[in-house]
């Protein structure tokens, strides 16, 4: 049984997703674990897109922070060589029009067809959606990163989502601290166990059906 802390776990997932990216490509990183992915990218030809209007996001040193240069999580970022700025409709035109290669998103739940829920929780006011729905319908590939289970230990890979779905589109890959799944023909397929994880543990903690 894995006993990593939450932060360690997030980094393990982020690092694993980063390995899946092959340049040249344009990637949009969501808030949370996806943001950490940037730390593990070393290919020069992987460019980051942020939906608030920048293609070519980089890290920024503390002393170079510009309050008017932020990512979608409103965190300060830097500007890559070859970067460009654009307005919000042009930015979402890129996303919705299929011009962003990969979106890496967090999720609250994934069902066994690869449909995700990541923007609202039943019983709470529906207050924010941001760019999640646009990224899901538009990105050429969508990778999901999340902890395998909720705080109460229940599986976040479900037969059916109980939270409102973000799109009818199935994601392409799912990365948790236990395993990596691909979605093929609307079915989950286990493609990799994370180091030290057994197939039994994945079976036990996964409600969704998946092919092994």
């Amino acid at each position, binding site marked *: 049984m894995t006993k990593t802390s939450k932060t360690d776990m997030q980094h393990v997932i982020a690092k694993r997703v980063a390995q899946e990216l092959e340049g040249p490509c344009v990637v949009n990183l969501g808030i949370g674990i996806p943001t950490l992915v940037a730390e593990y990218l070393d290919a020069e030809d992987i460019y980051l897109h942020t939906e608030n209007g920048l293609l070519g996001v980089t890290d920024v040193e503390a002393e170079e922070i510009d309050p008017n*240069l932020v990512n979608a999580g409103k965190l300060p970022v830097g500007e890559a060589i070859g970067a460009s700025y654009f307005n919000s409709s042009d930015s979402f035109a890129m996303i919705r029009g299929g011009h962003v290669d990969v979106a890496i998103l967090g999720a609250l739940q994934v069902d066994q067809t690869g449909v995700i829920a990541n923007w609202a929780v039943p019983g709470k006011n529906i207050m924010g959606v941001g760019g999640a729905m646009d990224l899901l319908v538009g990105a050429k590939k969508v990778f999901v990163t999340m902890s395998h289970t909720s705080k109460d230990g229940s599986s976040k890979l479900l037969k059916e989502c109980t939270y*409102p779905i973000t799109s009818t589109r199935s994601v392409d890959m799912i990365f948790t601290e236990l395993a990596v799944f691909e979605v093929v023909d609307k079915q989950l397929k286990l493609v990799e166990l994370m180091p030290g994880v057994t197939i039994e543990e994945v079976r036990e903690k996964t409600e969704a059906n998946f092919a092994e």
Partner: protein
Amino acid sequence: MSKITNSIQDALSCVESGNTVLVGGFGLVGAPLSLIEGLTEKDVKDLTIVSNNLGESGKGLGILLNQNKIKKGIGSYFTSNRDVGDKYQKGEIELELLPQGTLAESLRAGGAGLGGYYTTTGAGTDLGKGKEEREIDGVTYIFEKAIRADVALIRAHKADTLGNLVYYKTARNFNPLMATAAKKVIVEVDEIVQPGELNPEEIVTPFLYVDVIIEAQQVLTKEGVVNR
């Protein structure tokens, strides 16, 4: 017939109770902070505010919210201000939540004289409920209506005296779209320059969209919002 004023309240003189007001910015970045503050000092009510967020708790549009001047909010991410949820719970505000790309696109459509458009975003989700669905070439789209408003309050980097605008980094966001979609467009800027000083190939908002120009009195710095 100069478009330039030094008085925030003069700049806001056209804003009336019941108006629909577009407010630029992504959070505080690119938000017209001086004009928003001006609005909190003005005696108006029943506003419909179209903005990605409704500020933060007690900041920016958040003040306007707490003054009960906002009848309805249209945006994509109200989560950034916890007060919005409380007001909504009490039935003190109407909310219309749109995906961020839909918000942007509807503003562009409004400015471009279109009635509406079909997008895949939101189809089959709770936010698509009640919206007309249409299959086009085997793909399911939903209808979204254009957004037009009475007034737009926006933030740019530089204006020339004619009203041509350029923006600064990610402070651009919704501002150029909102500049096209309102009857009156009021812009606050870091700097006002002479016509000819902005490169014609670089101008993002041509002057025909802009009605009133004022120098920003509040700016966003690393340390937060400060008076200039």
